[in-house]
């Protein structure tokens, strides 16, 4: 019978993605491209918000978008109507985008031709939190219809994000959205986090969002 022995390694498992994300971040910086990603649960309004954002920016800046989806290119088709370059990343069974998928998708584009690159992640409040895409800003969206306690239920994704965006604010009254409770929930997991309230339908809150990203 042979004995066993422990060797200490202390190795971060997400290292491969982290390294690649770091490379991407350096590339974005050198090219002068501001990269902004959107994460949320399915249907919180990422694509609608992005359609509006792309439309408002397109006259003044060079913008493009990547969008992740398990199986369809529906969102890419919607975004392409804004007439900016759009590319779909179909992930198959994978529930998140990772840095390698983003790198591959960017192959045919010249980053220095872009002022802004938006990345819509797969609709999922869990998996994307572990995968850095090298973005300079990560926005987590939650709609007024999905419950004020989302941040407390899914703290990790809020930890990984830089700004929280409450979407579909035009529906707030209809669903008796409790603004204070939602903000308290965000504040509880991420004290001091910037919170914006927007509607892709009416355009409410868009000036504040654009001011935030054009800084």
């Amino acid at each position, binding site marked *: *019978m*042979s*004995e*066993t*022995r*422990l*060797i*200490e*390694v*202390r*190795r*971060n*498992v*997400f*290292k*491969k*993605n982290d390294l690649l994300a770091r490379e991407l971040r350096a590339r974005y910086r050198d090219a002068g491209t501001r990269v902004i990603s959107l994460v949320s649960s399915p249907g919180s309004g990422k694509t609608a918000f992005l359609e509006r954002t792309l439309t408002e920016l397109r006259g003044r800046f060079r913008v493009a978008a990547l969008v992740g989806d398990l199986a369809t290119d529906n969102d890419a088709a919607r975004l392409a109507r804004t007439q900016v370059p759009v590319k779909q990343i179909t992930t198959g*069974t*994978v*529930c*998140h985008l*990772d840095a390698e998928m983003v790198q591959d998708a960017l192959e045919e584009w010249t980053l220095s031709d872009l002022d802004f690159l938006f990345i819509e992640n797969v609709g999922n409040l*869990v*998996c994307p*939190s*572990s995968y850095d895409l090298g973005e300079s800003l990560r926005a987590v969206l939650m709609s007024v219809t999905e419950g004020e306690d989302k941040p407390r239920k899914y*703290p*990790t*994704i809020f*930890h990984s994000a830089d700004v929280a965006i409450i979407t579909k604010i035009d529906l707030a009254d209809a669903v008796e959205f409790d603004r204070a409770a939602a903000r308290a929930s965000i504040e509880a997991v991420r004290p001091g986090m910037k919170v914006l309230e927007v509607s892709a339908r009416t355009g409410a809150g868009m000036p504040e969002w654009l001011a935030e990203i054009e800084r």
Partner: protein
Amino acid sequence: MHELSIAVSIVDAVCEELQRRGDPRLIAVHLTMGALSGVVKESLLFAYDAACEGTPLAGTQLVIEETPGEEFLVTALEIEDERDAAD
């Protein structure tokens, strides 16, 4: 499916560590998993066996220690002790 891709990352990382150490015979991988890492222990254990198949890690065990933080790391490799194996 998230856990499967994490399990594959673990296998990749461990394969590299083993190679750097002259390919000792692996018994178990020890992992520290923070509660905020967003990973489900049971799913990961299940995915680990699948990810190990056909690799030098096949048949090895994954030992998970849960902690409160966000960390997620392979802390140690349990290997067969060469000195005894040579006996």
